[in-house]
């Protein structure tokens, strides 16, 4: 049973560039959430996708956008990168709340983004 996978594992970009991170959910899950974890901090919620739509969004600017595909995989896009976007980006998958199933979120290994 494959867990949550993310790619790439590491990425180096320069200020102003754009980046796309990818996530495949755990088998059987169709809800994907993205989190940003700065060094020494807890993860912060960016947004959640279900049925190919953004269902929830945290306090992040519009430079952060996402997409979910019919196979439930997801992308996180960040435009006009800032130095402060350097962080570990984590993807989590779960069952949708409406399914009445346990809402445990399972996390992938993350993508480390460094903006120079």
């Amino acid at each position, binding site marked *: 049973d494959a867990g949550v996978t993310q790619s790439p594992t590491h990425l180096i970009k320069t200020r102003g560039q754009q980046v796309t991170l990818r996530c495949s959910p755990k088998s059987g899950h169709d809800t994907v959430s993205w*989190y940003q974890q700065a060094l020494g901090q*807890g993860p912060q*919620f960016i947004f959640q996708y279900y049925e190919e739509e953004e269902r929830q969004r945290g306090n992040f600017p519009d430079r952060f956008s996402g997409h979910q595909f019919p196979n439930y995989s997801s992308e996180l896009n960040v435009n006009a990168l800032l130095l402060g976007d350097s962080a570990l980006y984590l993807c989590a998958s779960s069952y949708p709340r409406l399914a009445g199933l346990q809402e*445990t979120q399972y996390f992938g290994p993350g993508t480390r983004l460094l903006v120079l």
Partner: protein
Amino acid sequence: GIQVEQSPPDLILQEGANSTLRCNFSDSVNNLQWFHQNPWGQLINLFYIPSGTKQNGRLSATTVATERYSLLYISSSQTTDSGVYFCAAEYSGGGADGLTFGKGTHLIIQP
């Protein structure tokens, strides 16, 4: 949004000792999870425990939802237990916050 506070922020113990990590949250929750983050950044699920008590080997957790706190117990600590432990909660009243994480407890188990 919901506030999540963890204590203590740092904990250093000798191998074999027991420890208790605390998580306080500011509102009613429909999801509360404990994670262990390893040195490579992987968040490992320990417990899904919005209420009640669960045990898994040397680890156990208790959430008292009416008093808005959760406790993680680690018994007979091993050096491999070292790392950062996070508590995360989701407000049951809806909204757009997903899981809100505490700042974590950094646990060091010395041989």
